[in-house]
């Protein structure tokens, strides 16, 4: 009985938190079907915005820029970040601490300060454009990669790597065969996190971008005053649904785990 109550309360509470996190998303999804240019009046149901979305060259271009940027910055950040984390981990305590402080600096600064500082620095050696935004995004992405890989490295069993080396594997081979699999979950979540951060960033992009380069964030910012274009809601809905599907597909495993997953999905539907 007590056990049942506990389960009920647990589900109820999880549902509550999920509602809290997804309520605004629900609102945006609804807006994408709203047949009115104004977000505050309901003009009936429509799919027009989805149709118009794909013929809007500007939005499509911004979407492409956003995705390429997020992917490239997350990829480069992951490479540099994973290597960096491995290296830092091997450092002596003092250097280790110093490097971790520097790693935290981009997280400590207000975005606007980072953005303006990078802009002022970039103008000295590259023209502002796509490239400068990419460099900026990598800069704030690397710390996320390092912070998510570091705990895995600390848990890693180094003796297996040593054993592989003793048995004649060269460093690169041993790295890929022995170390990398142990770090995989950290690397994947680091990459995913970096990708997400890049997609969501506005302030730093705004200051480091060149003329004519637009990401979805900077485009939305430009629309704040005159009212967000409903096509944006439609696009956000699509992005969200695709991400959700990818996630569900990626986690579909027959067997025991599936039951939990169904439970959770049920919670989400509530």
């Amino acid at each position, binding site marked *: 009985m007590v056990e049942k109550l506990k389960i009920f309360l647990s589900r109820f509470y999880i549902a509550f938190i999920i509602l809290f996190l997804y309520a605004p998303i629900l609102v945006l999804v609804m807006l994408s079907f709203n047949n009115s240019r*104004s977000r*505050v009046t309901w003009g009936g149901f429509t799919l027009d915005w989805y149709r118009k979305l794909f013929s809007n060259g500007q939005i499509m271009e911004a979407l492409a820029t956003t995705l390429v940027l997020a992917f490239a910055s997350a990829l480069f950040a992951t*490479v540099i970040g994973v290597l960096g984390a491995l290296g830092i981990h091997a450092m002596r305590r003092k250097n280790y601490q110093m490097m971790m402080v520097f790693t935290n600096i981009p997280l400590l600064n207000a975005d606007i300060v980072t953005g303006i500082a990078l802009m002022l620095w970039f103008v000295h050696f590259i023209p502002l*454009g796509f490239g400068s935004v990419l460099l900026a995004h990598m800069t704030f992405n690397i710390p996320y990669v390092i912070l998510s890989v570091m705990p895995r490295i600390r848990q890693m069993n180094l003796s297996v790597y040593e054993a592989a080396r003793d048995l004649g594997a060269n460093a690169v081979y041993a790295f890929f065969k022995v170390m990398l699999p142990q770090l995989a979950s950290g690397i994947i979540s680091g990459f995913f996190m970096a990708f997400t951060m890049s997609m969501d960033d506005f302030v730093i992009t705004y200051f480091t971008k*060149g*003329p004519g380069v637009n990401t979805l964030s900077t485009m939305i910012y430009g629309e704040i005053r005159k*009212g967000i274009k409903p096509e944006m809601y439609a696009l956000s809905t699509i992005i969200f649904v695709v991400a959700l599907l990818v996630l569900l597909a990626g986690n579909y495993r027959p067997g025991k785990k599936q039951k939990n997953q169904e439970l959770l999905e049920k919670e989400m539907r509530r």
Partner: protein
Amino acid sequence: MKKMKKRIIRALLSGVLACSILCAAGCGQKSEGKESLTVFSYGEYMDPDVLEQFTEESGIEVKYEEALTPEEMYAKYKSGAIEYDLLCSTDYMLQKFINEGEFQKIDIDALENSKNIGDRYWELAKAFDPENEYTVPFFWGTLGILYDTSRVKEPVDSWEVLFNGEYAGEVIMQNSMRDTYMAALKYLGYSLNTNDENEIRKAQELLVKQKPDVQAYLVDEARDEVVAGNAVMAIVYSGEAYLGRQYNENLEYVVPKEGSNVWLDAWGVTKYCDNMEAARKFLDFLCREDMAKKNFEYIYYSTPNEAVINSLSDEERADETLVPPVDATENCEVCLQAEPEINDLMNELWKELKAD
């Protein structure tokens, strides 16, 4: 052997780094050979089709950059990170650009379509560009009160309604320093361009007293809040009032009898522009009737283009939010750059007001 490996690793790593940087810088390279203009303006202030058509007709590529406020525009321009060729800003900010020598003279007469811009607007522009040699008017309007007639019974005709506390918690002010001080200064019977410290401080007193009654300080989002009934009244630009009334017919717009601000947004060519010919083509294109009409229909702010005004229906022309009549702007002033000390004082007081 080990040293060798060290070197290899080092080489590999610097290779990765170099590649990423090169790739990044490479992507950032400008497309050379093609004529292009870098244009800076407000967000959603122009129909994207107009830009496309311009590129089609002239072969000149346009890179469009957006900002939300004149101050932000100034900050980004002044950082020198991007060399803009043309920019569209607002009266007092244009004056600042002109005074600081950032603009080049434009041969207005050489612009074939500049005759479409009515004399009234060239006159207005003289407030900040006395010889009409630096700027070409683009949009204009007034600042006034948008209110919900279903909740405000008596007709509104004075700024007083914002300050008398009758609609406490239902009032939205502008989240822009100059516009908010404008309302207070005008209500007190002063010029909105006052350089008298006492008058500014009196306005400040009024605004501090008013703050508890203010629901929010917003910019153009204020319109949506009144449309949705979240607030009863707001200070808005006339163009926003027009849009608001499209969604909620109970809304009414008034330019208070004490006078207000008549604003004018215009284009200037910056000192960085080394292709004046292209810039001229662009400005001329914007003044062309069909393009001005397109832009007008994109945002419904008042246009200074008489050819467009003449093409409107009688009903539209009678709408004071679309075409503010001459008598409505009679005791309105164009906002100008304040003296540096006064500007600093206002900045300081504004911060104080917001932090209060």
